[in-house]
């Protein structure tokens, strides 16, 4: 019942299920007109008890569960688990398997970043861009299907290697995709990135200052857009990233709009170029040889031990803490998902923006609710 014009603050709850949100979460907003005065985030709606579920699996059957950590970047969960097990069991992965892992990782990163572009385009209402990027993302999913038989949840990595050697023609098609993406990125820029209306929608909102990023433990592309040069692939190389020659894009410190939504978007585009570069090098440098230490059906035991490994997922630093008591099951598995830091920093970012900016800020942050809630 609206009897008179309200001038006090409005309360608005968005969620837990809402298409402007990256996943199930509840946002409690206090609005002054269209301005957001304060925001609170409630999470846990997607909690599946994933870490506990992993402890109930045999070592080998834990891998498909790790896929579910972040469905969009399924390979990163697998890779983190495999690297942790390999560290405890001191397994040396053959070079060919390393290269295949790097290729699949970077393809996953590109597909996740393309999904990101789609969400940003949808948040600002640019349907054309959405369809163009989805069309090209399909080609990467086709490559996954060619190599692993699955498009999203790959379940392809094994302790000490990968499940199978890549299909004939896969490497050539990876190189074709690299060439295609180089052309497409230019198209995306022409159509969308440098569109005046898009820049006006994203510039200066949801800014993460470098200090804020450090204080909340923000990592990955979001932190790099804030000018923090930290990439696990460079700082703590794994799977042979130290043998590859690539530059990690970082936001320029002197930029006036350091760490805002537009910067984060641009950085993702640059990351795709970097990944293409890595893909090319890995595809050209791939050696022949075994793709795994043993046959997949052979059982093996993980000795007693503890490991913490870090990898660079598409959203940032993904940690995996693994404890083994030498038995048939993992004793304890914990993940450190990069999205959790974003959820904690979110209330700082929504303060002072307009409600129309909220979907844009959420989309440019790239929060993976699945991995945050686990």
């Amino acid at each position: 019942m609206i009897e008179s014009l309200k001038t006090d603050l409005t309360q608005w709850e968005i969620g837990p299920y809402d298409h402007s949100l990256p996943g199930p979460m509840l946002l409690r907003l206090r609005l002054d007109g269209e301005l957001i005065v304060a925001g609170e985030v409630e999470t846990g709606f997607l909690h599946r008890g994933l870490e506990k579920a992993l402890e109930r699996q045999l070592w080998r059957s834990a891998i498909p569960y790790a896929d579910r950590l972040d469905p969009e970047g399924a390979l990163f969960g697998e890779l983190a688990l495999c690297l942790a097990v390999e560290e405890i069991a001191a397994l040396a992965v053959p070079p060919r398997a390393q290269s295949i892992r790097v290729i699949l990782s970077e393809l996953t990163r590109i597909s996740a970043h393309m999904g990101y572009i789609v969400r940003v385009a949808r948040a600002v209402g640019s349907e054309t861009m959405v369809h163009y990027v989805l069309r090209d993302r399909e080609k990467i999913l086709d490559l996954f299907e060619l190599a692993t038989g699955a498009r999203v949840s790959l379940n392809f990595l094994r302790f000490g290697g990968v499940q199978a050697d890549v299909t004939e023609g896969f490497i050539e098609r990876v190189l074709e995709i690299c060439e295609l993406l180089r052309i497409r990125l230019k198209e995306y820029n022409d159509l969308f990135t440098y569109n005046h209306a898009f820049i006006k929608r994203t510039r200066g909102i949801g800014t993460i200052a470098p200090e804020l990023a450090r204080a909340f433990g923000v990592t990955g592309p979001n932190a790099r857009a804030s000018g923090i040069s930290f990439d696990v692939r460079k700082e703590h190389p794994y799977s042979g990233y130290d043998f590859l020659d690539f530059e990690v894009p970082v936001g320029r410190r002197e930029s006036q709009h350091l760490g805002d939504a537009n910067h984060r978007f641009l950085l993702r585009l640059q990351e795709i170029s970097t990944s293409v570069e890595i893909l090319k090098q890995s595809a050209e440098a791939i050696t022949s040889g075994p793709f795994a230490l043993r046959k997949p059906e052979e059982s093996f035991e993980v000795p007693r031990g503890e490991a913490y490994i870090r990898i660079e997922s598409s959203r940032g630093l993904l940690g995996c803490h693994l404890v083994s008591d030498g038995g048939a099951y993992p004793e304890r598995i914990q993940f450190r998902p990069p999205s959790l830091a974003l959820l904690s920093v979110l209330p700082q970012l929504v303060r002072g923006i307009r409600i129309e900016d909220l979907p844009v800020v959420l989309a440019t942050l790239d929060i993976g609710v699945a991995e945050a809630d686990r």
Partner: protein
Amino acid sequence: MNAQAMWLNPWISGFSFAESVPQWLLTACGLVLIYCLVIVPSGAVMGYLERKLSADFQARVGPNRAGPAGVLQPVADLLKLLQKQASRDWNWREAIWLLVHTMALYSTVAVIPLGSLLLLVDTDMSAFLPFWSALVLALGTMFLGLSQGSVPGWFGGIRVAAQALAGAFPALIALLCAGIRAGGFRWSEIAAAQSSSPLLWTAAANPFQFIAFFVFVISGLVLLGIPPMDAAFSAPDIHGGVSSHLSGRKLTVFRLGRFYGFLLWSVIAVVLFLGGWELPFGLSTELRNADSPRLLQIFELCWLLSKTFLLVLVVTWIAKVNPRSRVDQVTDFAWRVLSPFSLVALIGASLVAGWGAL
């Protein structure tokens, strides 16, 4: 009834009704028939074309199931929407909205210019009437949003009002520019001041009229909330705003109003600035001389609607590649960019008209 409505009479008399049926009733029925036969189907055609063309722009297929190449998709959509159950009970506020909305829609039928003989109300103020109808549509939409008692509806309603007010001023000024050149606001005068040749259209008369044309079209987008200026109906943040709680038949009426508003605006833009209904190669004169009013009506209507569809498609094309602007950016743009330009156009058009009168 205005004497201009007499064009209907030869059509009506052809059916030989009883003498006891009053003329005004026949005229009114004829109008409703025209509305149903021209406006509503043109909405379906435009909806289909928009979908198919945007599918082509966006590297996808578009509707292809209902009928050959999906041509029956608008019909399927309409039937589905009509039979859907309302998501909420009908309340008296929505009844008021429906009344205002329908009145605004039907009031335009009388004033919409569709040809030299299809002019029902051709008064000194004719060109302003569809403009007011558009504002009344916005008013009804705002009421609907405020009556919903939800935050998205509230913001949607307020944004509709803000955009309508911001767009109305430059649109009105641009309308004055066209009127100044024609020397009046009668549809017949405005059309007579132009010709079929694009060089003699108002938009091409001088640079100021060209600016006025642009301002008129763009401020229409702002006024009616058409993409990419549709922040009032934005989906990601306020779930479509006013329409967030509408479903079924209410949504049908609402969508028809939105689409019809766009079509109406494009028709007016074509009549004011793009030569109106005058047929090329002197066909209009020949048909008039040959005393075949029905053929003239049909050809003029088709010619006018073709130009209108082209304008609609160009606007849709631009809308497809541009992101949606934020509502404060939209109103800011209307007040601080469109309005000054419209004033420049008005001053320029007045000077040109005064120069010509000397």
